[in-house]
């Protein structure tokens, strides 16, 4: 940690980790929404039938 | 069939001269802006001239490319052409050639204007310059016709065409500027051979891609 430019390394590492985690979070949320909607549509369908 | 299509595009243009007039006016306006906005020494101007020149031509080509395809949208002309017994790839070549012709004609007017207003010396080897210009125009028209065919069906296409065209055309632009600069510096062909080869590669690659793929782009 006492080496030079540690801040830069940390910045780069954090940017990458945060970006990847954010992407995972965004698509995870989308999956959740889609699954609830799918469930809703399925129950609607079975009610209609 | 190809001749008919190209002739149709050229005839439409000849009657209204919309595309050419807008290209030349816009090009002249930019050239004038260049002349007014900075007054560098003649040596600096010579350094920047190739880049400035090709930027003008790229901008005016967008006008031609956009207009050429959007004309087809009026009265649904495009679907009528599609229902004619012509191969789609031939359609691409007709757009390609007419785009090329528009660009060359516009350049014939704009280039002398450019040299005049920016007070540039004429290069010794005019034949080389003409060859390079013709090839680069082919390249711009190839990539541009393919891309404008693609974006024409999408909303906001006036913005999308330059947005997509400029990055794609960057290698061509770099090569054009480097070649033009070398010619204006009266350098022998060997010195800028690489750029010439790149231009030719670009033209070949995009002409082929356009020819092979335009089919898929223009289906309804």
């Amino acid at each position, binding site marked *: 940690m006492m080496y030079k*430019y540690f801040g*830069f390394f940390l910045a780069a590492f954090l940017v*990458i980790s945060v*970006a990847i985690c954010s992407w995972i979070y965004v*698509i995870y949320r*989308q999956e959740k929404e889609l699954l609830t909607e*799918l469930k809703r*549509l399925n129950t609607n369908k079975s009610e209609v039938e | 069939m190809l001749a008919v299509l190209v002739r149709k595009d050229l005839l439409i243009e000849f009657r209204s001269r919309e595309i050419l007039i807008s290209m030349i006016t816009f090009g002249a306006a930019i050239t004038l802006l260049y002349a007014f906005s900075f007054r560098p020494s003649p040596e600096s101007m010579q350094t920047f001239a190739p880049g400035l020149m090709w930027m003008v031509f790229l901008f005016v080509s967008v006008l031609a490319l956009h207009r050429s395809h959007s004309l087809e949208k009026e009265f649904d002309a495009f679907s009528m052409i599609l229902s004619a017994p012509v191969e789609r790839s031939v359609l691409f070549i007709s757009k390609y050639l007419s785009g090329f012709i528009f660009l060359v004609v516009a350049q014939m007017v704009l280039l002398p204007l450019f040299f005049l207003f920016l007070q540039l010396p004429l290069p010794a080897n005019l034949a080389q310059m003409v060859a390079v210009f013709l090839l680069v125009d082919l390249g711009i028209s190839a990539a541009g016709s393919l891309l404008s065919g693609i974006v024409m069906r*999408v909303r906001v296409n006036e913005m999308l065409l330059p947005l997509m065209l400029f990055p794609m055309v960057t290698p061509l632009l770099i090569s054009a500027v480097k070649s033009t600069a070398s010619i204006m510096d009266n350098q022998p062909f060997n010195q800028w051979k690489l750029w010439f080869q790149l231009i030719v590669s670009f033209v070949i690659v995009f002409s082929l891609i356009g020819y092979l793929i335009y089919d898929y782009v223009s289906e309804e």
Partner: protein
Amino acid sequence: MESFHSRQSSKVTAGILAVFWVVVLYLVLNVTRIDPDQQMAQKIFYYHVPSAWVAGLGYLVVMFAGVLYLIMKDEKWDHLGLAAAELGTLFCALVLITGPIWAKPIWGAPWSWEPRLTTVLIMFLIYIGYFMVRNFGDEGERTRRISAVLGIAAFLNVPIIYVSVKFWAADAQLHPQPAMSQQSPDVFWTFMLSLLVFTLLFVHLLRFRVHILKLRSKVLGMRYDV
């Protein structure tokens, strides 16, 4: 349909990825040697280069998916293409961010017009156009076809872009060219592990995203049936 991560295989992969992400970080910080001039900044390379590799891989997949979509006309290839384009562009952006972060202390200036960075920037811009076309087009088959074509044309342009930029600014050839085979084992194996982790991450995220796109397609289909 169920959630992607309810599957055993996905859970295992995700777990492995998380563990090895930490392992690589540990190795980078404690095991790899310190470059005398660049010190900690050099270690960015363990993340910057694999990101570039994944971006290129992503765009290659977009091209193949495009070709397959045009031939087979099966929607799943379009899903693959879109997912790969998203990931490719994400990692492209990461290359464009980590590059300047490294360059600022080492070269003094964050940006320079050297071939690799410039090529990556141009690819990034082309793909922004790709996403705009996808967004502004309607949901139909035509947009998918057009995207396939764009993905193919974009990738085929890459070698030309690279060569032209390489010879354009002959004075800006500053990008370090480490010969990987000549590096010491601590550097080499850590780099390889990082590359493996990034590749595995790419594949996992790609499959995850394709699963979601399939789900979305299903929901959209059902929505308009009911």
